[in-house]
């Protein structure tokens, strides 16, 4: 187990370095000359001399690796620079936005698990009977149609037509319902299919035949054996799906005007507010990589074949 974890940790670190290099590249080459940008905020055309002085002040005349190290140091302290548009440090804006996005994604994640796990199991147990066919049909629809269309539909019915749930205003629970549902719908559909598939695959395994031939009840076989084994591929997918939640949150936030990171990103893209974009990307990538690391750890605890290093993996 330590060997496996150390290897995973090493890869994780490498990926984080790669991510930071991309983000650094963004700040360095794409945003234009920061010295000019800073001076431009004063509103007066800077002279060449002033620019050079500013470059020195910002450390831009040093070698690239040195600049990278200074930049990394600043980032690790949470300093992402200031927004071009508002002049407010990006850090402060993020601190306000992150909780809103967290509420949304965690809510959606819980809803997904709460819906998909029972439905997936039920669908697998009732294979090819009416409940399974209906669930699968619904899941197919949820999977095929882009998430924001569901959002628009929910929005139209519950907010515009029925006026039940608010679209704007305070971050209340009622206002959270529609975005959370929209965000979790595609993922729930996917998980129903995956969980169902994994259970059915396990039911074909030799050990299920053995247990059946010993006359064990289906209940024991399912709850005592199959579910745990089927959880392995599902858990290995958990990390990835949180990623798709983070990505989806951008669309949902913008659709429901939810004041989270996603809507902040869209505004910033339209304003070419590069420090914000860089900070957002870096934050998301790091969060995602760490979540995946956690999922790996969970997998390692769950599956003895990984933990004890041997045998074939599923």
């Amino acid at each position, binding site marked *: 187990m330590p060997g496996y974890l150390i290897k995973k940790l090493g890869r994780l670190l490498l990926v984080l370095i790669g991510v930071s290099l991309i983000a650094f590249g963004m700040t360095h080459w794409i945003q234009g000359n920061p010295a000019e940008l800073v001076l431009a905020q004063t509103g007066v055309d800077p002279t060449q001399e002033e620019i050079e002085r500013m470059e020195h002040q910002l450390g831009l005349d040093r070698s690239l690796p040195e600049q990278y190290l200074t930049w990394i140091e600043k980032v690790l302290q949470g300093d992402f620079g200031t927004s071009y548009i508002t002049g407010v440090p990006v850090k402060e804006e993020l601190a306000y936005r992150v909780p809103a996005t967290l509420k949304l994604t965690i809510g959606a994640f819980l809803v997904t698990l709460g819906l998909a796990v029972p439905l997936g199991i039920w669908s697998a147990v009732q294979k090819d009977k009416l409940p399974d066919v209906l669930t699968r049909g619904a899941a197919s629809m949820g999977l095929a149609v882009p998430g924001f269309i569901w959002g628009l539909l929910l929005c139209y019915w519950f907010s515009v037509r029925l006026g039940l749930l608010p679209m704007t205003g305070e971050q209340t629970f009622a206002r959270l319902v529609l975005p959370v549902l929209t965000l979790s719908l595609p993922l729930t559909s996917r998980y129903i299919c995956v969980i169902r598939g994994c259970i059915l695959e396990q039911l074909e*395994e*030799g*050990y299920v*035949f*053995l*247990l*059946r*031939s*010993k*006359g*064990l*009840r289906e209940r*024991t076989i399912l709850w*005592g*054996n199959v579910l*745990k*084994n089927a959880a*392995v591929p599902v858990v290995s997918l958990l990390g990835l799906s949180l990623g798709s939640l983070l990505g989806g949150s951008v669309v949902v936030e913008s659709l429901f005007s939810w004041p989270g990171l996603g809507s902040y990103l869209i505004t910033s893209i339209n304003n070419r507010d590069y420090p914000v974009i860089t900070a957002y990307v870096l934050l998301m990538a790091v969060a995602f990589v760490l979540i995946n690391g956690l999922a790996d750890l969970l997998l390692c605890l*769950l*599956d*003895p*074949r990984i933990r*004890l290093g*041997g*045998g*074939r993996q599923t």
Partner: protein
Amino acid sequence: MEPLLVVEHFSVQYQRMDRPAVDDVSLSLNPGQVLGVVGESGCGKTTLIKGILGFFPHCVAGVAGSVRLEGKELLGLPDKERRNLLGTSMDVIAQDSGTSLNPMKRIGKQFSQILGEKLGLSYQSSMIYARELLARVNCPKELLNRFPFQLSGGQRQRVLIALAFALRPKLLLADEPTSALDVTVQGQVLRELELLRRDCKSAILLISHNLGAVSRIADQVAVMYQGQVVEYGETHQVMDTPSHPYTKGLIACVPSLSLPKSQRLYNIPQGGKEWEGGCRFASRCPERIPDCQRQAPQLRPGKKGGLVACHCCG
């Protein structure tokens, strides 16, 4: 003596197959005896076992005949009653020891789960029993704390044998229990199977493609070809004085160590066209007469004893 297992005119037809996988098979097995069923791949051995157990896959189109265990009809038995019979009255050792154990559970847990549900043993007492069982198949008791992937193929097969005899079934169906093992291990596992059978007084239906391995422990042998029994009799009689050309061929084509070095191996000729009626073996048969292509031979007493399905040697 009342036979333990009676199979009468048993047929299983799969969807989209031109002939039944098991075709009009009749066998009977007395308590405590061993019946070997020998045949090559596709002869319906495994379907026969699954049929006796009552595990029919979805693609089965039709089942006919009768399977009786201690006078009780098994075909069409409700699931619940079958579950009560499974394990205690009849049990199975599956072909593939690699997948027959739950890969994510320690061996001990797997023992306790089965012993707990079928015999009502507590965890502690099932561990004591499991240790005793493992000792009888020459396995160290440390195996109880291991996962299946940490065991060698021979050890896994022994664990399966121990599990099968744990419930002291009256009938044990063994599907190629040793064919995946190395030759040195095969011998040992066969011997352990034989010892346990003697202790538990179980009857065994042993299925194998290897006539030699079957003849070692079987009292009677049935030779199957394309779903039908072609020869059925006492082991020594079938092995020493085979009647059916297919049985003769099967015995002669093994490159035995006692064969003179320069002698050419006997060949059963390759099959000709598709079967069109009459004897299934006719197109490969060296002793074929015109009748063979026209009329299917019935199983009837042969000149040398036993039952043979052949026009020429009946």
